[in-house]
């Protein structure tokens, strides 16, 4: 009985430990270009990231909030970029790696396969690729925290 309890405790702790690792990605991040902030959340066991801040929030041509004007789906071209989910469907694979998701680049309207690797608690390597991981590019995102007032 003691052994069973001990094993159960180890199982529970390891599960909790893994869950904590997986949720380390949750938070607000800044892509390498610094033009946006992206908030990553966990929804139904998967991880999603949406744009929550834009350095240039308004389209200089229209003076209106920026929309997803390069989306290949015409019906989406009036959707505001702020609030847009650019990271979708990531599943934690262990060892600080999230896969099976996609990243959307609003600058060219293309969705790429994507793998996220946590370099350390404050840095993510985001690799968007086509087909296989070799054909891709890695960008480093940095964690942002709420400024103390």
């Amino acid at each position, binding site marked *: 009985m003691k052994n069973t309890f001990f094993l159960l405790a180890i199982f529970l702790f390891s599960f909790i430990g893994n869950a904590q690792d997986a949720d380390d990605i949750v938070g607000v991040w*800044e892509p390498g270009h610094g033009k946006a902030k992206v908030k990553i959340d966990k929804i139904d066991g998967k991880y999603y990231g949406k744009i929550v*801040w834009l350095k240039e929030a308004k389209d200089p041509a229209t003076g209106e909030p920026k929309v997803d004007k390069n989306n290949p789906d015409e019906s989406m071209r009036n959707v505001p970029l702020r609030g847009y989910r650019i990271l979708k469907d990531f599943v934690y694979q262990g060892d600080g790696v999230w896969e099976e998701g996609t990243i959307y680049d609003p600058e060219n309207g293309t969705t790429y396969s994507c793998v996220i690797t946590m370099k350390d608690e404050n840095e993510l390597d985001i690799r968007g690729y086509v087909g296989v991981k070799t054909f891709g590019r890695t*960008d480093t995102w940095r964690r942002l925290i709420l400024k103390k007032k």
Partner: protein
Amino acid sequence: MKHNSFYIFFLSFFIIGFLCVNAQEDEEDYSIYDDFELENDTPIKRYAKPTISGMSPQKFIGISFDAQMPYRYEFSNVTFPESAGNGFDVDEENPNINEQGTAKFTGGLRFNTNIPIISKSSFVWQSGINFMDTRYTIAEAPNAPRQPVLLPDGTQARSLGQILNEDGLRNINWTNTFFFPLNETEFIVFQSQMDLSGNYDLDTFQSLNTLRYSAAAVYGRRVNDYYRWGVGVARTYRVGNLNYVPVIMFDWTSENRKWGTEILFPARAYVRYNFSKNALLLAGFDLEGQSYRIDDYSINGNSYEIRRGEVRPKLEFQAKITGYIWASVQAGYRWDWSYDADELDANQDFFRGFFGNQEFGMVNSLENPLFFNVGLNFVSP
């Protein structure tokens, strides 16, 4: 009844919950994110991206077939100025024509790769092996030059028409491109290339001491997402023989992303029209060329090389087939820049430029036919 009440309660719970979550999401106060900042105050270095918006897709792997329409050619006597060392050369203005004929077909398979080895915001290294096979079908008497081709030791050799007809010309090169962003705006591109070109077979490879080296360095500024420019220098074989030329980069896309330019002069220059995200048209030219060693004429430790350089004004249509596979169709005019030959001392190349007085081994001319090229590419949109 009990069950029904339970289901209604259960369903209501989820509907209300769902609405609350969505309401929360819709009403999110984004202004709080103004106050999010990096944990430490270390300045972050930002880097220029290696492309601008709207450009044609980057080709990672491509296979194509190139074909030129029939054209007439005239080849001069084959002379060996380096071996003879006595001014035994071709009259450049009025060369003695030793061979005339028609190339009914010129072309073949091309295979290109450009694989990212390291691809990060701060540095990009792409590397690729490229292969170009050029086969010739000579229509008229390739075995009947006016005078037999004699090597300096008196041995008779095949005529150039016969060599082209039987062997064709091949080029294999290894190209490496490095993109160094210096900051958010400035960047340097460095490209190096090693070419092995000649009438060799893939099973009887040409000596590696006949490798020819090209390189280019460009300093550029990515002014915004729609425009970048650059200037630099190149050591190139694109006009056949060795040259040192200035390089100008000018990539631009209109705000509506319909029009643009993709210029890396003198290698290529296009005006681009984007029909949609999945189809575009390029109008412009390519400058193509290599120095091809002709093994039959390479004697006394020298390398006898055809300096093939051609300008290709063309239209190129590119369209997405499926996923990341795009097709390309090109049609244009193959304008002969050079098909002359040099005999190089012990495989060492020289720079003739505009003022060099090195003697030609052959002075040849080709008529200019139409050409077509169809290909499939694995691309990054």
